[in-house]
C-alpha cells in the first residue's frame, strides 16, 4: 500500500477514538443528570467530581485526535 494512503487510513481509524470519547463524555454527564434528578440536593456538591470525570474521559478522545494529527502532519 502507498505510504501516504496508509497514513490517512490510520488517521481515519484514529477518529474512532474520538467517537468512543463521545460515548464516555455522554456517559459521564448522563449518569450525573440521572442521579442529580433523583437527589437534586446532593448534585451541587458533586460538580467538581463531574468535571474530573469529564476531563478524564475527554483526554482519551483528545489523544486520539493527537494521533490523527501526528499521522497526517508529522509522520
Amino acid at each position, binding site marked *: 500500500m502507498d505510504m501516504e494512503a496508509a497514513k490517512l487510513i490510520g488517521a481515519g481509524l484514529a477518529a474512532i477514538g474520538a467517537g468512543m470519547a463521545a460515548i464516555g463524555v455522554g456517559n459521564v454527564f448522563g449518569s450525573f443528570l440521572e442521579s442529580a434528578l433523583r437527589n437534586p440536593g446532593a448534585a451541587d456538591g458533586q460538580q467538581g467530581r463531574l468535571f474530573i470525570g469529564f476531563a478524564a474521559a475527554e483526554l482519551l478522545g483528545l489523544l486520539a485526535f493527537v494521533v490523527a494529527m501526528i499521522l*497526517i502532519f508529522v509522520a
Partner: protein
Amino acid sequence: MAAETAKVDPMHQFTIEPLLGANMDVAGFNIAFTNSALWMLITAVVLWIFMLGGMKRELVPGRWQMTVETFTGFIDDMLEANVGKEGRKYVPYIFSLFMFILFANLLGLLPLGIVGLHPFTFTSHFTVTGVLAIISFSIVLIVGFWKHGFHFFSLFVPHGTPLPMIPIIFPIELISFLVRPFSLGLRLFVAMMAGHVLLEVLSSFVIDGWNAGAGFGLLVGVPSFLLMIGICALELLVAAIQAYVFALLSSLYINDAENLH
C-alpha cells in the same frame, strides 16, 4: 500531503510569526516578539484592566466589582472544597491561572477577522500550556517535599495496600503522577486546537461550497454556516470548561501535596 492540496489550510492559523526583532538572538536562541507574545501581552493587559475596575473595594459593590468578586469567590470556594482551609493561600496562583487561560481562550475566539486582524490563541500551543502545567507541577513538588520531606513518597502507596502489592502499586502510582503535567498541558492545547481546526474546516466548506456554484452553496454552505454558529457557541463553552478543568486539576494536585492521601 492532504493539507497542501486543500484551499483552506486549517493549520495556517497556528503559525507563529515574528513581529519585532526577527533576527534578535541571545545565546543562539531567537527572542523575536511574536504574535504569540503579542496576544499574551494583550491577555495580560485586558486581565489587568478587568481586575483594576473591580478592586475599588466599595462597600456597596457595583456591577464590575460584583463580576470580579464572583470569579474570586468561585476560585476560593473551589480551593476550600478541594484542599481545605490551608488551600486559601493558593487562591492567588489558581485565580491567575484560571483567569489567564480563560481570557486567552476567549480572546482567541474573537471574530476580529472581519476587520482584518488575526486573533491568535496561544493556548493552542503545547509550549505555552506545557509551561503552565510545569509551573503547577513544580508547585506540587516543592510544596510536597517542603511540607512532608521524604514522607511525600507515601503518596505513591495508598493506605491499606497489602505488602506484596507495594512493588506493583508504587511504579503505577509513580508513573500516573509523572504523567500529570503532560496530560494537563496536552488537554488544554488539544482542546483549543481541535476547536479552531473544526471552525476552520467548516468555514472552508462554506467558502468552497459557494465557489462551486449557488447549488452547492445552498446545499452545503448554508447548513455548514448554521452548524458553525452552533459550534462557535460550543467553543465558548469549551473555552470556559477547559480553563475550569485546568484550575480544578491543579488544585486537586495541590491537595495531594498539601494533605497526601
